[in-house]
């Protein structure tokens, strides 16, 4: 029996206008609702300005919402203020792991810090858990002694995933988490994320602009454009038999064998 771990209703986000002339502000997310089944993986796909990252950040408690309700694990969550959802409930992995690590803190210490706050493990047990976590993401215990700058991009993203998993969160939000990686390394991390989901009961919310990555990593997906959901369904259906014009345009724009780049695909992209 499937059970929703996350229920979002009528989310709306308005960013304040930067200049006096724009009194209404900018509506970044407008009336977005979706459910996420426990243990599933939901992809959120869209272009820049679609509101996909803002939606993820509000769910994570990093941004406030103007309106809407959010339930996580059956409990109502206040979206009107910034609030840490708790590292054993929800964690986030960002595009650039360089920006999410302290450059002077060793990888092991960064993970240990979370364990010290969130568990009652003693020093020895924490050390063992750090080693386990690093091994789970394909690194090894010796990487605990490294500074972030001494790891390659792929290793750093693995370490960021290890840290996010430290307190066994129920939900992992991945915001363009593989977009900055080289193709050959991206495949490794995508395989790793698939393994973690197979071995644990974790739920993914995977934000990306890359349709092929979304296809690989998610069961269901949402296509967003200009702050609204334009299409949703199982990922296989949405990406092989899209119903909406916008989804079709996105798919047509993906380079592939025999692809002819086309003019007139960008709709809002040309700007003012």
């Amino acid at each position, binding site marked *: 029996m499937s059970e929703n771990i996350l229920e979002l209703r009528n989310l709306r986000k308005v960013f304040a206008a930067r200049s006096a002339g724009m009194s209404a502000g900018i509506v970044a997310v407008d009336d977005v609702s979706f459910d996420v089944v426990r243990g599933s993986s939901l992809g959120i796909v869209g272009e820049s300005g679609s509101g996909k990252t803002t939606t993820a950040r509000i769910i994570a408690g990093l941004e406030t919402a103007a309106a809407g309700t959010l339930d996580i694990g059956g409990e109502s969550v206040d979206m009107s203020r910034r609030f840490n959802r708790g590292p054993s409930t929800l964690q986030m992995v960002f595009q650039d792991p360089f920006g999410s690590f302290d450059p002077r803190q060793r990888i092991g210490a960064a993970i240990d810090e979370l364990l010290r706050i969130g568990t009652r493990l003693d020093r020895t047990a924490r050390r063992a858990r750090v080693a386990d976590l690093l091994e789970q993401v394909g690194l090894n215990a010796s990487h605990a002694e490294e500074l972030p700058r001494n790891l390659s991009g792929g290793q750093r993203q693995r370490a960021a995933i290890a840290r996010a998993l430290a307190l066994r969160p129920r939900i992992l939000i991945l915001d363009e988490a593989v977009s900055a990686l080289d*193709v050959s390394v991206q495949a490794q991390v995508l395989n790793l994320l698939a393994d973690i989901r197979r071995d644990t009961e974790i739920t993914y919310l995977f934000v990306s602009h890359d349709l092929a*990555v979304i296809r690989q990593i998610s069961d269901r997906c949402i296509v967003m454009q200009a702050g609204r959901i334009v299409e949703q369904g199982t990922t296989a259906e949405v990406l092989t038999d899209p119903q909406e014009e916008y989804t079709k345009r996105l798919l047509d724009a993906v380079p592939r064998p025999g692809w002819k780049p086309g003019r007139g695909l960008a709709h809002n992209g040309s700007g003012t």
Partner: protein
Amino acid sequence: MKHALLEIDGLSVDLLGRQRGDGLRRVIHDVSLTVASGESVGLVGESGSGKSMTTKAVMGLLPRGARANGALRYHGQDISGYNRKELSAYRAKQIAMIYQDPRAHTNPLVKIGDFLIEGVVAAKLMSRADARERAHDLLQSVGITDAGRRMVQYPHELSGGLLQRVMIVMALMSSPSLILADEPTTALDVTVQSEVVAILAEQIRDRSLGMLFITHDLDLAAAISDSLAVMYAGAIVENGSVKAIYDSPRHPYTAGLLASRPSLHEVKRLQAIPGRPLSAFEVAGGCAFASRCPLASQRCLDERPVMREVDGREVACHHPQNVELPTRRPA
């Protein structure tokens, strides 16, 4: 004998290490590549493969302290023999670059029109009035209908896709014969990328220009180029027609790149290449790809493979016939 537009012949580049006392670090190793007039060559590689450094060498813009060996010939003339005046004429008139981030290459305080005419006027290629007229015409030819209005706007008033079209116009202003495009669409949304690539391809074709298109995206390079050169750790490992390389790669790295991309049509475990991309200076002897290669033998560790012809393309591998072809994806 007819000379190619651009010939890179046995180019090697060494850079000074970042810290004092570091020796020279090799970043480009024996790269040979030609671009003919009207031909579009896709140069594909991951980070640190040396693809951008190759374009810098072609522009004569290597960083201070860099040492280049080998020959760079433009219409058969060695660029390294140019004096200052010839070099600046070559850069101003013969060759043009389009970069990844147009915002980093425009001045936020200079209007689009002034920006576009600055180069050609400074190089005394045309008068101010002629340059304005040309900029206006070119803006229209890349699909910018209200060219007059755009020319008096500032860069921040244009979207990324529009600004990249302005950069294409900038590249075309001096009627160059060779365009170097370094990841020109990587920062753009897919629908905008499709449009910018279409415009670029159209301009190149209509004007019979040569283009070196640098990208990390093999699918994109294959879609707009006539031939492909795949770079790994500062060296070209496979070089040939798009069809040969895309349909039946003979270098395990090319095959690995093709197999590691997720597909839009099916979900299956990705065939990742183990390890991470190396830079040229991290490679000791032998084949640079050996540490990540499923086919590596003792010979690969001992002896660096040289480029040779196999099945209608050039490949630097000791075991090209053993490369497993990636399963075909439906178009």
